[in-house]
């Protein structure tokens, strides 16, 4: 009896908390819902402030497809993001494993030098990289897109931190069993660290799907654009068609929203991954 009373008292005291969290949640979600409903309305209804979904989704989609290379941009985005994710995970997990399992004074020093790359701003490297890549004929190519993105201090740090939990006994036992160092990495480390790989994959995919400045610099031919560039192009027109643009934004957001809702836990782990 008293416990029940106690519980209801606790809940009553939490009422301001519930109100605050509810307001904040509504503010967080509202722009999304508005985007989805605007994608189904025409210009007139949207500018009148209509919030309910309308019947113009098909028309907005037709306009979008007729004015922008939607299929091409979607394909490009997937190719870019998936190739970055696969290569980045491979290279950075190798390095994180190497820095942790074989660590000595020199490797620790090298690691702290690599961390300095976190401070290098993208605007500073984009000019020389643009020059290098245009000389190497890498403009408008997938390789050009992924080269600067496949090795990041953040990802190396994340794998290094997580490799700490990997028991050294397993490595010793595997060595006695006659496995060489590379086999140990692929047969022991890789399967054990599945959850770290999942978190790293989610965060890398999101970052490369959403990349804007770098593709804007090197994708110069109009055919190699990604989804983010496509929707940025839609607002450059003389006449701004809200419904059509929001349809584009919706398409650009669908993959990241699926990742978010299905893999939210891994996404949160990926964000905080390097700081344990």
């Amino acid at each position: 009896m008293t416990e029940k009373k106690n519980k209801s008292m606790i809940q009553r005291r939490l009422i301001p908390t519930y109100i605050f969290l509810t307001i904040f949640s509504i503010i967080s979600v509202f722009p999304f819902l508005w985007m989805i409903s605007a994608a189904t309305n025409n210009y007139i209804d949207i500018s009148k402030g209509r919030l309910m979904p309308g019947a113009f989704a098909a028309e907005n989609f037709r306009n979008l497809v007729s004015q922008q290379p939607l299929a091409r941009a979607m394909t490009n985005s997937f190719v870019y993001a998936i190739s970055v994710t696969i290569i980045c995970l491979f290279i950075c997990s190798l390095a994180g494993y190497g820095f942790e399992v074989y660590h000595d004074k020199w490797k620790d020093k090298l690691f702290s030098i690599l961390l300095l790359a976190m401070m290098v701003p993208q605007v500073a490297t984009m000019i020389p990289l643009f020059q290098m890549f245009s000389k190497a004929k890498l403009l408008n190519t997938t390789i050009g897109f992924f080269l600067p993105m496949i090795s990041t201090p953040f990802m190396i740090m994340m794998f290094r931190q997580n490799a700490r939990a990997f028991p050294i006994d397993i490595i010793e036992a595997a060595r006695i069993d006659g496995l060489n160092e590379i086999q140990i990495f692929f047969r022991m480390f890789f399967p054990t660290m599945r959850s770290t790989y999942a978190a790293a994959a989610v965060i890398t995919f999101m970052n490369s799907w959403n990349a804007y400045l770098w593709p804007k610099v090197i994708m110069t031919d109009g055919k190699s654009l990604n989804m983010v560039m496509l929707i940025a192009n839609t607002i450059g027109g003389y006449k701004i068609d809200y419904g059509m643009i929001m349809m584009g934004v919706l398409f650009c957001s669908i993959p990241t929203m699926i990742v978010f809702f299905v893999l939210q836990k891994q996404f949160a782990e990926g964000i905080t991954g390097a700081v344990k």
Partner: protein
Amino acid sequence: MEQKKKGMTLIAKQKAAGWAFLTPATLMIAVMSFYPMIRAFILSLQTGKGANYRFTGFSNYARMFQDRVFLRSVGNTFFYLAIQVPIMLVLAILLAQLLNNRDLRFKGLFRTCVFLPCATSLVSYAIIFRFLFAQDGLVNNALVKLGLLDQGFNFLGTAWSAKMVIIIALVWRWTGYNMVFYLAGLQNIEYSVYEAAKIDGANGWKTFWGITVPLLKPTIIMTFIMSINGTLQLFDESVNLTNGGPANATITMSHYIYNTCFLRAPNFGYGSAMAFFVFIIVAILAFINLKVGDTRD
């Protein structure tokens, strides 16, 4: 003797494997980050067009400090930094603290909602906010309907309000992101610490300042560094939300550097000088932060 020799080669083999594992990543960072940084510095001392570049010493740097648009972009960027980062981080800690309550119901739902803005790309949310705050946008519609305004206010066409819209948008996008760090940090704090404080009669406010903030200090410093770094490199929002306007009132450093290098007449030398300036500011601020954070008490 033979045993020992074999052991040596095994250790040598392992050592070689260790270096081999980290070589690809190290090479990539050296070629894609450090080398371009050096190139950028060399470029910043040059001026010219196409293939004809010649050294001019520090003239690009001198020009920078007389370039009104650049100075304005520096001012704007620091304005965003000074207003937006504190608001966002305080909100994020507060939300994490509220969500860390054991008695709270619908925790998962609230967390998902607050975290949701992270699922949008920067360009997407910049466009959404651009339309929400347009002259015929939803915010103006609501204000007119509520009778607060006679006609739509040109939020994005007025300097002060355009800056505010950018700050609101940034807070919207990044608060949940930072909250995730604090939630992870809070979960490392034993719940019994809070219960002990409650028994000792400390109220919510006191436990917040007495327990949460000191124990989260490393996380706070890290999120602070990340936010500073991110704000100093703002690009997507400036381009797509306000396009730097009205009259460069909201342009950021990265946006202006991009325009200098890739719009109209490209000037890589001058752009590199400005970019190098950004790098120096990022480095100085990160260094100060780490120094402040290092004082253990």
